[in-house]
C-alpha cells in the first residue's frame, strides 16, 4: 500500500531528524574562524590594556578549567578542576558575581558603597560597608602612565621570555588578539606558553590559556565563554537581604585586619623600595623567570597539626602524610624524599622537612634543595 509506505518513510525521516538533533547537541561548539584584525605589536597591545581604567559595562559567563594532572587527593576543593561564574559589571565599579551549584548559589554584589555576599545553602548574608573617600584612589605613580608601565612590564618579561602577538582568535563571540608569552629556550620549565586573548575593541583580557610541554590540551584555561558588552539591568547591582537570612556585618572586622596589615607593611617598607619576599632558610626564592623555584624548610613536626580522626578535612592533615600517600619516593646525595609531579609543576619534600617547588622538572628541584641548610 502506497499510503503505508509514505507513513513509514515520513516516520523514518522524523526519527532521523531527531537523531541528527541529538548529534548536533553532542557536537562541541567549535572555535570560530580567526578574525582578520589590523596588526599590532606587543608593546602597543599591553599599553592599550593598561590604559583601561575601569572594566566596561558587561555581563557574561566566566569559566575556568584545569587539567593539571594532580594526583586525586580527597577533600581537594572542587574549584581546582573547574569553575563557572556569571559576572556583571555596570562600568562604574558596581559588580555582581554569581556561582551556581546544583541547588544552591553564592552571590557577591558590590553596589558602590557596600559589598554583599550571600550563600543560599546557609542563608547567611555578609555585608561590608566601605568608605569610598578612604580607599586609595590613586594608582601607584608608575601605573598612571600606561606607556611607561607597559614598557616596564615588558622589560621585566623580555630577558627570560619571548613576547609576541600570535594571530587572532574569536573568544565568546568577540574578536581578540592573542598575546603569547613563551619561555626563552634557556629556561628549564615545564610550561610551553601562556596565551592571553585581548579584546580587539575594548582591550580587556578575555581568556588566559596555559600550555605545558608535551600536551596540546591546555593545562589551565580561564576566560569568558559568553560575553555581552553593554549596559546591564541596574537591578543586578543592588542587594536587599532576603527575609529569614542571617546578616553578618563584617565592616569593622575587615577594616581592623586591613589596617593592622597595612601598618606592618608600611613599617617594614623603606621608601622607594619594592617589597621583597623574605629570604632565609625557612623560605627562599631561587632563580628568576620561568624556572624560579621556592625552597625552604617546614616547621618542626610537633608544630604541625596532628591528624585528628574527628576532623577529616584536608586542612587538618599533616602535609608529610599526604605527600607520602601521593608522592613517589626518590633519593640521592641530597637525601631522601617524595616527589609529586603534575603537568605544570613539581614539588619535592624530603624526610627531614626540606621542600622545593616550581614549574620546573625534578632535576632543577634537586639542585634547589641542595641549597637549603
Amino acid at each position: 500500500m502506497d499510503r503505508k509506505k509514505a507513513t513509514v518513510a515520513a516516520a523514518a525521516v522524523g526519527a532521523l531528524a531527531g537523531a541528527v538533533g541529538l548529534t548536533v547537541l553532542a557536537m562541541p561548539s567549535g572555535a570560530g574562524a580567526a578574525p582578520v584584525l589590523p596588526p599590532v605589536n606587543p608593546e602597543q597591545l599591553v599599553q592599550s590594556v593598561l590604559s583601561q581604567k575601569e572594566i566596561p559595562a558587561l555581563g557574561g559567563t566566566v569559566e575556568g578549567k584545569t587539567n593539571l594532572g594532580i594526583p586525586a587527593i580527597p577533600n581537594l576543593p572542587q574549584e581546582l578542576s573547574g569553575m563557572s561564574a556569571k559576572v556583571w559589571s555596570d562600568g562604574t565599579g558596581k559588580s555582581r558575581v554569581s556561582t551556581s551549584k546544583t541547588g544552591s548559589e553564592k552571590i557577591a554584589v558590590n553596589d558602590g558603597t557596600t559589598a554583599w555576599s550571600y550563600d543560599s545553602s546557609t542563608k547567611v548574608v555578609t555585608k561590608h560597608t566601605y568608605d569610598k573617600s578612604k580607599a586609595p584612589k590613586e594608582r601607584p605613580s608608575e601605573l598612571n602612565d600606561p606607556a611607561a608601565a607597559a614598557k616596564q612590564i615588558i622589560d621585566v618579561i623580555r630577558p627570560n621570555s619571548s613576547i609576541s602577538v600570535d594571530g587572532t582568535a574569536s573568544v565568546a563571540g568577540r574578536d581578540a588578539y592573542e598575546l603569547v608569552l613563551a619561555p626563552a629556550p634557556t629556561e628549564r620549565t615545564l610550561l610551553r606558553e601562556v596565551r592571553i586573548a585581548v579584546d580587539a575593541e575594548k582591550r580587556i583580557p578575555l581568556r588566559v590559556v596555559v600550555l605545558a610541554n608535551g600536551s596540546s590540551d591546555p593545562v589551565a584555561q580561564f576566560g569568558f565563554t559568553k560575553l555581552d558588552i553593554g549596559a546591564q539591568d541596574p537591578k543586578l547591582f543592588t542587594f536587599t537581604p532576603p527575609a529569614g537570612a542571617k546578616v553578618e556585618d563584617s565592616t569593622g572586622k575587615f577594616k581592623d585586619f586591613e589596617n593592622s596589615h597595612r601598618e606592618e607593611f608600611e613599617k617594614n617598607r623603606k621608601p622607594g623600595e619594592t617589597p621583597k619576599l623574605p629570604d632565609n632558610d625557612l623560605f627562599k626564592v631561587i632563580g628568576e623567570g620561568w624556572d624560579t623555584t621556592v625552597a625552604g624548610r617546614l616547621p618542626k613536626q610537633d608544630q604541625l597539626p596532628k591528624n585528628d580522626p574527628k576532623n577529616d578535612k584536608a586542612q587538618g592533615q599533616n602535609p608529610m602524610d599526604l605527600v607520602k600517600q601521593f608522592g613517589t619516593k626518590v633519593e640521592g646525595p641530597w637525601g631522601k624524599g617524595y616527589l609529586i609531579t603534575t603537568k605544570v609543576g613539581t614539588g619535592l619534600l624530603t624526610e627531614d622537612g626540606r621542600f622545593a617547588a616550581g614549574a620546573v622538572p625534578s632535576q632543577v628541584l634537586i639542585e634547589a634543595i641542595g641549597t637549603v641548610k
Partner: protein
Amino acid sequence: MTTASIASPQLLERTPRAPLGRLLGAELRWVLRRPRTLAAFGVLALVPLGLGLLMSMMDFGAAPLQGPPVLASLLGNGMVLPLAAMGMAMPLLMPMIVSMTAADAIAGESSHGTLRGLLIAPIGRTRLVVVKAVGVAAVTALAVAVLALLGITAGVAFTGTTEFTSLSGTSLTFMEGIGRVGVAAAWVWLQMFAVAAVALALSSLTDHPLVVLAVMMGTLIVFAVLGGIGDLSWLHPVLLTTGWMSVIDVIRDPMESTALVESSVRALCYIVIGLSATIARMATKDS
C-alpha cells in the same frame, strides 16, 4: 470504544472516518478513569505533602541543616516546595507513571486483545498513535499539575508566607513565583513526555506492558549511571537524563535558562524519535 463493523470493502471506503474529537474524548475518559492512574496521582500527591511536613518539622530545630542544599532554601520559602517536589519525583516516580500509562496505551491493549479492534476500526494508524499520545500526554500533564498545585498550596500553608526568595537572594512576588513554577512545570512535562514517547515506541513493539516498564526504567537507570561517569562527558549531551537537575534554575534571578533550553531541545529530539518509531511500527503492524 468504537466497534468495528465488518463490512464489505466497498462500504468501508465510503464509511466516514470517526471524528478525532470523539476519539480523543473516549481515550481520555478511558485513561483517566483507570484506577491505577488515580492511584498514581495519589502517590504523587504524597511527595509535596511529605516535603511540607518535613520542612515544618525541620523548622523546629535551630541546628544547621544537613542534606541537599535545596532543602535549606526550603525553610521559610514556600515556592521552592513545588520545585523540590518536581525534582524529587523526576528521576524515578514520574517516569514510572508515564511509562506505565504508555505501556497500557498500546501493549496493554494488545495483551487484552483489544488492540485488534482499534486497528480494524475506521481510524488511520497515525491518528490512532496521535490519540494514544494525547492520552499519555494528558496523564503526564495532570501528574505535573498535581505536583505543582499541591506543592504551591502546601508551600504556602506550611510557611505561611506568599513571598519567596530566589536562590540568588532576591525577593520575588507571589505572582512571579507562580510564573516560575509554571515554567518549571512546562519543562518537567516536556521531559516526561519525552520518556512517554520512547515508552510508546517500546509499547508498540511488544504485547507485554511489563516489558515496556522494565526496559524504560532500566534505560533511565543506565542513563543516570553513564551521566555520572566523567570520562563519558562526550556522551552526556545525548542522554535524556542529563539536564534533569536544572529544574532548580528557574528560581535563580535572573533565570538561568541555558540548561533548561538545552534539555528542552534534547527532550524534543526524543519525542520526535519516539513518536516516529511508534507511527512506523503501528503502520506496519498486522491486525
